[in-house]
């Protein structure tokens, strides 16, 4: 359809501006698709609000405690999902994030316990946190080297690291959870200012930084380009190997931060901390509009995706539905989301049908 719309230009003649076509391609379907995570979120909130009023005569969303709980629910999956967003946009996937998070939680617990007697409360937390994130970066480096240098498919390379990080985390934890005794750390994990939990504030600032990194820097731009066309990116002088290495370190660092905040919240490090969150993180990215084929996705979308999952999980508990419905609901939302994405591609794929 595209080529036939263009007048055959004689030499020097202008090609018709492309606006009509491009704007028409932006059909209703596409607009819905772009905003689908927010639409899901709106529908869920309205639905739970109605349900809550009808069943209990109380509000769901205009309740400060509920909002807080949903935000706290969303922290860990959102941190994993921001890192995962970068990886998925590049056309890869990082399956090891869940256990890297657990590894970081265990390391943070041990390190803070070790430093607390000598360094005092805040300094021990700071140093322990930094060490935990640094240790989390080690599997990230290995992932990056596997994918960039040894050309291991990301799915397989990070699956291997999933096992390694899992084993190491359980070994370090001695097969159990590691309690932390540092009241400053506990305050970070459970304290709040103006009713906003600290861990939510830390997460918000971090996610904002990641949004900037993806949208406003060369690193982010190259990430999109690599996801769309590695060959093109490489021909334009982008160093693919070093980009991929930094990318997997970044996703591991996100998991590391999630692990530290987990340890703060529960006052303990657990190797299985991130186990159920990995697939939630992928789901958040996909619901947020990214394509698993790479090249598209945004942090804003992922934030919406993570909240969709958090609202489903918390909302179903709130309205007193058996927890197993959570899995079904999240699964259905993922499938609907991907169907919308595919419909959108069919409507906007003008180039293919030339």
């Amino acid at each position, binding site marked *: 359809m595209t080529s036939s719309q263009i007048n055959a230009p004689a030499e020097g003649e202008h090609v018709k501006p*492309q606006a009509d076509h491009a704007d028409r391609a932006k059909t209703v379907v596409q607009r819905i698709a772009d905003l689908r995570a927010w639409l899901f979120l709106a529908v869920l909130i309205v639905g739970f609000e109605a349900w809550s009023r009808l069943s209990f005569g109380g509000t769901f969303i205009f309740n400060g405690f509920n909002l807080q709980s949903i935000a706290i629910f969303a922290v860990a999956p959102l941190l994993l999902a921001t890192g995962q967003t970068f990886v998925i946009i590049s056309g890869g996937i990082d399956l090891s994030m869940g256990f890297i998070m657990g590894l970081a939680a265990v390391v943070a617990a041990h390190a803070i316990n070790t430093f607390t007697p000598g360094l005092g409360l805040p300094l021990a937390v700071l140093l322990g946190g930094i060490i935990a994130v640094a240790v989390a970066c080690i599997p990230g480096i290995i992932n990056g080297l596997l994918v960039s240098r040894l050309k291991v498919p990301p799915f397989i390379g990070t699956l291997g690291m999933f096992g390694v990080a899992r084993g190491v985390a359980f070994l370090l934890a001695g097969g159990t959870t590691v309690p932390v005794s540092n009241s400053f750390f506990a305050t970070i994990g459970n304290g709040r200012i103006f009713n906003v939990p600290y861990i939510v504030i830390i997460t918000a600032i971090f996610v904002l930084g990641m949004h900037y990194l993806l949208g406003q820097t*060369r690193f982010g731009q190259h990430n999109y380009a690599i996801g769309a066309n590695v060959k*093109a990116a490489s021909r334009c002088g982008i160093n693919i190997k070093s980009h991929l290495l930094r990318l997997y370190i970044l996703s591991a660092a996100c998991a590391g931060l999630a692990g530290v905040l987990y340890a703060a919240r529960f006052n303990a490090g657990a190797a299985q901390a991130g186990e159920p969150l990995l697939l939630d993180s992928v789901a958040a990215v996909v619901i947020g509009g990214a394509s698993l084929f790479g090249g598209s996705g945004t942090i804003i979308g992922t934030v919406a995706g993570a909240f969709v999952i958090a609202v489903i999980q918390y909302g179903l508990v709130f309205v007193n539905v058996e927890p197993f419905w959570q899995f079904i609901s999240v699964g259905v939302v993922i499938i609907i989301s991907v169907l919308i994405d595919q419909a959108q591609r069919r409507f906007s794929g003008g180039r293919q049908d030339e």
Partner: protein
Amino acid sequence: MNSGTQPLLEVNNLSKHFGAVRALDDFSMVIQPGEVVALAGDNGAGKTTLIKTISGVFRPSSGEVKLKGEPVSFATPQEARDKGIETIYQDLALADNLSIGANIFLGREPMTRKLGFIPVLDRKKMADAARDTMALLDFHVSRMEAPVSNFSGGQRQAVAIGRAVYWNAQILIMDEPTAALGVPEQRKVISLIHQLKKQGRGIIFISHNLQDIFAVSDRIVVLRRGVMAGERKISETTHDEVVKLMVGG
């Protein structure tokens, strides 16, 4: 044409051997500013080897390449590009999800500062440069921020050419630029090549399509089994003669 001026590109006695295979043997040619030279030949005649040797993908086994009279030697395609020799590949080498500006600047994005201290991509500069460059190619788009996947094949070809033009390529090597396009789109690319010619750039144009070759080129160089089979001015030759040179009749 222009035989009195300094040639843009000279290829002297260039050979490239792969083991015992002489992919290119003692080949010489010259390109003047504003000249379009078509490279023709059957599959395996050495066209690709020749352009890869000129553009820094291969090192020549012997012989030399001179750019504006200066002997040059490239270790990588990037070095050739920095000196102004740009290859536009058949598969376009665009990132489909990015805008025209982002594609032009891919790998060399300009930065600016927000609020005086936060470094951010200079999208305005990219969009402005894209608009100017595309206007130079007589190509007008209203939505500069749209991803290039929204555009047609010919327009995407124009974006790839625009990138070369923006970075001041003096020699453009175009490998089958019209192969994947419909007829109106092919005409657009041909008119783009005329624009580049007017700007005094040199173009090496590889095509299997004799009609395109005759529509756009000043000269045609025919390769056969790695050697020069003949060189003709387009105005002094015919389709039949070129085909004969190609097949060795």
